[in-house]
């Protein structure tokens, strides 16, 4: 496998799409109920944790893109191959692929859980799972441009959801935010750690990067995307703290959805029913990006044809998704994902950057010596 990977021109997209992709990847199923765990630790200063995570993501994405820029046009699979050599590189690639599948599963199951507990408690899981996999397979077989297309559409047409945040403002009591920075710093750090799993998604730029046309502008647009999603998260966090009483927020699994409940226009009440169904289009690009990254990895690293691995992974994940039925099981799955996501998406890119940097330096020194 060559470290450098240059996709064909029809598979390239403009650099400003990085903005939409980044924003879309970061906002997913987690936004429906991320407040609870952070509030447990960081209390009314949770919004500080959210801002800290935002800053952290800026740093990590900066490093991710710097790592890839060392090679010109490549993805994480090529970097692994170059840094760790053929065999160990393959192991790392396999880990990344498994991580992508895990993320797909997490997103899928959490969404299905929401649909089941709010709208259709009787309908079996397999039906939801099957319908989402059908959409995923149909989208992914259309190629990366279709996936990015639906991601772009989703960001544009989902703007209305933000207006729903205006309704809770009527009942918000912003004095609950005071006193600012009163919580002990360790709590805020712990809250930050819990928040990391919500904003995941940016690590897929490791795989998407070769598909951007003007590589030099990706940095700018992806950071803009992070900025916007951080603002959205902070806004929701602040409104949640002001709207709920502390006890409520800790015991509420889906705080955002609960806030949507009170939204009301002359012909629609209980907006959460609409948003839950609507959330399908918001998580669909996330599911497809993760799945696509996994099958890209299979093709790049193990030379398995995309369609074949797509089919195998879909069937595999479909079967696995049937086993998670209770809140407890799903919660355990989520708990397990927090450290994995933290180490893989937040810590590992820093390490990889330095490894790749040293390797490049060493190589060019050797070439100069020759």
């Amino acid at each position, binding site marked *: 496998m060559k470290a450098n990977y240059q996709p064909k021109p029809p598979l390239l*997209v*403009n650099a400003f*799409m990085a903005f939409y992709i980044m924003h879309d990847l970061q906002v997913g199923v987690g936004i429906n109920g991320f407040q609870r765990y952070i509030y447990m630790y960081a209390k009314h200063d949770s919004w500080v944790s959210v801002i800290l995570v935002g800053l952290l993501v800026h740093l990590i994405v900066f490093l991710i893109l710097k790592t890839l820029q060392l090679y010109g046009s490549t993805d994480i699979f090529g970097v692994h191959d170059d840094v760790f050599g053929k065999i160990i590189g393959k192991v790392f690639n396999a880990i990344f692929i498994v991580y992508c599948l895990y993320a797909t599963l997490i997103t899928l199951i959490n969404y299905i859980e929401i*649909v089941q507990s709010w*709208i*259709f408690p009787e*309908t079996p899981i397999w*039906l*939801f799972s099957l*319908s989402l996999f*059908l*959409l995923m397979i*149909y*989208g992914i077989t*259309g190629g990366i*441009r*279709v996936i990015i*297309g*639906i991601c*772009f*559409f989703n960001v*544009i047409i989902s703007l209305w959801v933000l207006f729903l945040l205006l309704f809770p403002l009527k009942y918000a009591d912003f004095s609950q935010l005071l006193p600012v920075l009163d919580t002990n710093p360790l709590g805020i750090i712990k809250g930050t750690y819990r928040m990391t799993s919500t904003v995941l998604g940016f690590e897929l730029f490791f795989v998407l990067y070769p598909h951007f046309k003007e590589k030099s502008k990706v940095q700018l647009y992806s950071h803009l995307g992070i900025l916007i999603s951080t603002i959205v998260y902070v806004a929701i966090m602040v409104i949640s703290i002001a709207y709920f009483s502390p006890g409520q927020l800790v015991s509420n699994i889906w705080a955002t959805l609960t806030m949507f409940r009170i939204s*009301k226009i*002359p*012909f*629609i*009440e*209980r*907006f959460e*029913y*609409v948003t*839950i*169904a*609507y959330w*399908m*289009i918001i998580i*669909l690009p996330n599911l497809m990006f993760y799945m696509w990254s996994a099958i890209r990895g299979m093709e790049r690293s193990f030379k398995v044809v995309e369609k074949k691995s797509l089919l195998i992974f879909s069937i595999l994940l479909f079967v696995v998704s049937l086993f998670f039925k209770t809140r407890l099981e799903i919660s355990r799955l989520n708990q397990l994902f927090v450290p994995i996501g933290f180490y893989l998406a937040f810590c590992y890119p820093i390490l990889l950057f330095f490894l790749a940097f040293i390797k490049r330096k060493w190589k060019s020194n050797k070439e100069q010596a020759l």
Partner: protein
Amino acid sequence: MEKIIRPIPPTTEEMTLALKKGLQNSADLMVKSAGSGMTLLYIDTLIEKLMLHQDILGRIKDESFSEIDAIMGEITVSDIKKSKNLDEAIMAVLTGSVIVHLNGDSSVLLVNIPSDEKRALSKSENESQVVGSQIAFNESLSTNIQLIRRYLADPNLCQEMFHIGTRTHTAVSMLYIKDIASEEYVNNLRERLTSIKIDGIIDSAVLSQLIEDSSLSLFPQMTVTERPDLVSHWLLNGKITVLVNGSTLAICCPHSFIEFFHTMEDINVRWHIATFLRLLRMAGVFMSIFFTAVYVAVLTYHYEIVPQALLIPLSESRARVPFPPLFEAFLLEFMIEFLREAGSRMPTKVGQTIGIVGGIVIGTAAVDAGFTSNILIIIVALGALGSFITPSYTMGNVIRILRFPLILLAGCWGLYGIMFGFCLLLLHLLRQTTLGAPFMAPFYPPRFADWKTNIIRLPFTYTSNRPIELRPKDEHKYNPEKAKKQK
């Protein structure tokens, strides 16, 4: 395998025999002797008799020629050529030529004088408009090309001829403006036209189905129109047009999804109105697709999302209805479709009666009988209106049938089902291409510069560029700097 060229038999008898055999002893094949060894062979029903007498017979009768070239000089018809190929001669006879045969000569003259039986130009019935020209194409290819050339007196307007169909040999003409239309699209279309293997095409609507990108897709990827002004406007933007002899419809491509909701009137009326109308159409189409489905979903599964004040009239009107919402909606939707189909196959006057019978009698009776609720009738009627709002008939039909799967999904899985349908639809649209160009442009890939001409319409002073989604060679309609100075 190379085809064997059959030569023209030199003697009159053999030529007559060969032609009769070639045309299966057709009764309308005329063999007329013009004196001194000259014979005219033609199909009586296909040629212009007046020209035969004035320009051919009148010039060569009573004279004797030793060779065929001399006759060529005498005949004053412009479309004339010499041929040594018997099959070519037979083909020419079938398209309205007269064969002039000189005894002893192995080449013949093919004088093309087809009878030009055609309908007079008339008003556009199916795509009528208030502001703007009223003329529509008719069935004659030459007239249609003439109509376009009248709008576009541009030397760069290219016209390429093809003959498609192994049996029909239909004349098909591809038009584009050389220094605007993208070469890639032109080559692409030319390749598709030449690679068609079919016995015959009767109408351009058939041709468009043969050359479009995906025939499995629900959506048409090329449009057909009967308006020469619209075709000219699109040619100026860099599109390619295909005209088919015998068809009143011109194919235009590449044609993106949003352009199916454009009309010529959008260009003709002032920009505020045009923008309003375009947005209105989009809202109408959206409503048409989703309204009934949402009704079914809400009444079957999500009573909670209806506010109390609205829930009371809703449940009152549904109190007497014995069916579940899904069945009720299907009943009414199919009733509307029946009416529509019946109305469109009827003569105009009967059609109106059908509308009254359907709309008033059946509608009121259905509510009185407790078959459907009043509110559903309003919703279904609005949906039907919304699908009529689509200017393109082919796209309107798609909107019309799209409702049914969505209603079914709504009946099975409520809002989740509708969302599933919506996602599937969006993915499907994103996967489509039109002549290799993305179908969903300018939404995706986002061409924000085109939004001002294709989604809304800004004044012409702000739209000096052609839509870039067509990749025109010359991007500027005019130079905005110069235009400012003249003001």
